[in-house]
């Protein structure tokens, strides 16, 4: 690690290299760790099964991750503010059904997707209002809305289900189609991801999300519109869960009252593996997206390696713990390097 003496550098030209981009580098290092784990995993699998990275194989990998990436992106926004949204699975389920119902009745796909997103926004707003105006713990509230939305979904959907037969062929084809190995859905998710990341990094609103997660009281004193920001984070999270619902419909062509139940744990896992801290204020959507990719890929890698599905769950869990541990050790290393580097000279 290079040591710079900031005091010596002329004010106008602070060097870009060296330690000046330290904060960013810490983030990037965490993402890098996950990326390396992911690449190693893929390489090992490819070595064991040459069919793995066929065009179809790559497409499947990307498709599997797509929906989780979207929801994890939204979740990251909320987690950065030191909150959490456990209701995303329920929101995904109910939006998927709403979109499906519209299409079943001969509706327009664009309208259906909009409907799903609007429904997501609605529930996001509900969560956001409860958390920001009610100032009550997000964990409890969103566990509550998880149950409420799921309950409403079950009552509304009953035993009905939407199957591929009810959907316009074009919609379903879009769900599995793509530009050679890159599915359309993955492109949409990628666009959302990049836009969100750019906003978080380069816009005041994005930075304020980090600030208020890092120290809510200080954020208030700094005049940041705390409630508005939290509300916005939840709304976007809900909207993305809604969009993910529409994509789920396109992808699986099948929705019933159980769709998306239990999904919150998967999403939270992805976010955690991606290095987004639940204490707020740190982490990035790229990390969360990588976490999502890693998690879903494990489920493809193990069958492709011929690992009996009996083992999948255990290996999944162990990998999850390993990923978090590795990330933590990297972070500790960085922190101690940081401390040594900062021994001040008066």
């Amino acid at each position: 690690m290079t040591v710079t003496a900031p005091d010596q550098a002329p004010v106008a030209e602070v060097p870009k290299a060296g330690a000046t981009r330290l904060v960013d580098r810490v983030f990037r290092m965490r993402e890098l760790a996950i990326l390396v784990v992911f690449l190693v995993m893929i390489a090992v699998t490819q070595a064991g099964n040459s069919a793995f990275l066929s065009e179809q194989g790559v497409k499947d990998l990307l498709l599997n991750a797509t929906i989780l990436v979207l929801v994890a992106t939204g979740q990251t926004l909320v987690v950065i503010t030191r909150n959490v949204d456990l209701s995303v699975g329920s929101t995904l389920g109910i939006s998927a059904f709403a979109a499906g119902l519209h299409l079943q009745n001969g509706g327009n796909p664009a309208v259906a997707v909009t409907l799903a997103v609007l429904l997501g926004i609605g529930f996001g707003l509900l969560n956001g209002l409860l958390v920001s105006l009610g100032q009550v713990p997000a964990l409890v509230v969103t566990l509550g809305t998880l149950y409420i939305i799921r309950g409403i979904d079950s009552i509304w959907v009953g035993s009905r289900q939407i199957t591929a037969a009810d959907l316009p062929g074009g919609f379903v084809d879009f769900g599995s189609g793509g530009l050679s190995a890159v599915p359309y859905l993955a492109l949409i998710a990628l666009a959302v991801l990049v836009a969100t990341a750019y906003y978080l990094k380069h816009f005041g609103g994005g930075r304020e999300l980090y600030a208020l997660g890092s120290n809510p009281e200080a954020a208030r004193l700094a005049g940041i519109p705390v409630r508005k920001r939290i509300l916005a984070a939840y709304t976007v999270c809900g909207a993305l869960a809604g969009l993910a619902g529409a994509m789920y419909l396109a992808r699986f062509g099948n929705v019933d009252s159980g769709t998306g139940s239990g999904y919150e744990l998967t999403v939270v896992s992805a976010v955690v593996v991606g290095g987004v801290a639940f204490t707020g204020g740190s982490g990035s959507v790229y990390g969360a997206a990588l976490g999502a990719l890693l998690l879903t890929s494990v489920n493809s890698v193990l069958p492709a390696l011929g690992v009996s599905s009996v083992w999948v769950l255990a290996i999944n869990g162990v990998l999850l713990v390993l990923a978090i541990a590795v990330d933590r050790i990297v972070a500790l290393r960085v922190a101690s390097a940081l401390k040594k580097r900062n021994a001040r000279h008066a």
Partner: protein
Amino acid sequence: ATACGGTTKEDVKNEGGVAASAGKADPNAATKKGLTVGFLPKQVNNPYFTSADQGGEKAVRELGSTFKEVGPTSATDTAGQVSYVNTLTQQQVDAMAVSAQDPGALCTALKQAMKNGIKVVTYDSDTNPECRNAFVSQASAEDLGRTEVQLLAEQIDYRGEIAILSAAQTATNQNTWIDFMKDELKDRKYKNMKLVEVAYGNDDAQQSFQQTQGLLQEHPNLKGIISPTTVGIKAAAQYLSGSKYKGKVKLTGLGTPNDMRTYVKNGTVEAFELWDPAKLGELAARTAVALASGQITGKEGETFTAGAMGEYTLGKDGVINLGKPTVFNAGNIDRFDF
């Protein structure tokens, strides 16, 4: 009866089971009216069980009794299902028809119900025989297992690698079918067919999806898949129809016509089979009423008339078979709606 100062499995074998049915059947007893029959499926909101229970409801109404349905919202919430058995017991229904999430877990509660004079019929998924009066089986496990292999064999000309995509590893009925499939495959006419793997998709669309992908990647020469679960076959079909394997890898198993219509029409699937769930529910309902009326008690060899469905005879352990499953293909699928 202790070995090494402890109670082991050996000791328990000697304890022996208790016969559930008591009393004597009177085949000519009048069918009672004004009974309450409770249906307790594995999961409410599940289309399959909804069809079955609607069949049951129709029959119960016809017989002049009251129908009610309760159940958990998750098919793995065994504790929830136990509470519902208790609830039905507390509400003093006359008979209940239960599709058991677990063969053992419901036993204590069901025995308690029978002690309180409630007749217990299981349908779709059985419990241990001593915990119920009768079991209405959707088709004999043997028939299902063997016919699925036969269906697939015809589609792949009796040669090539095949795999099975099942539900949960613990699903009792699936496991029995798979055992019969393996047994059927021992026949010489299948000597060119090889079962390479049994995968489990846990009756979850996404997992079944990914398990299908895994099967195809791991076994590039795979010719066919049997999925004896409605969720599994649907997910596998959806994956195949959007992949390069469409039409090349054959898929069969248990599915509902409504789920599978698209895939049969777009050529992903040639043929699959299933019993009619509504008929299953109806038979369960009629069995329950027959038990409550004293026409049968659950002993082997007893017979009763199930309305328009005709006469049924109780087999060993009080098992009643619904009959052979129906095979659906492009030719007949449009005649069914469930």
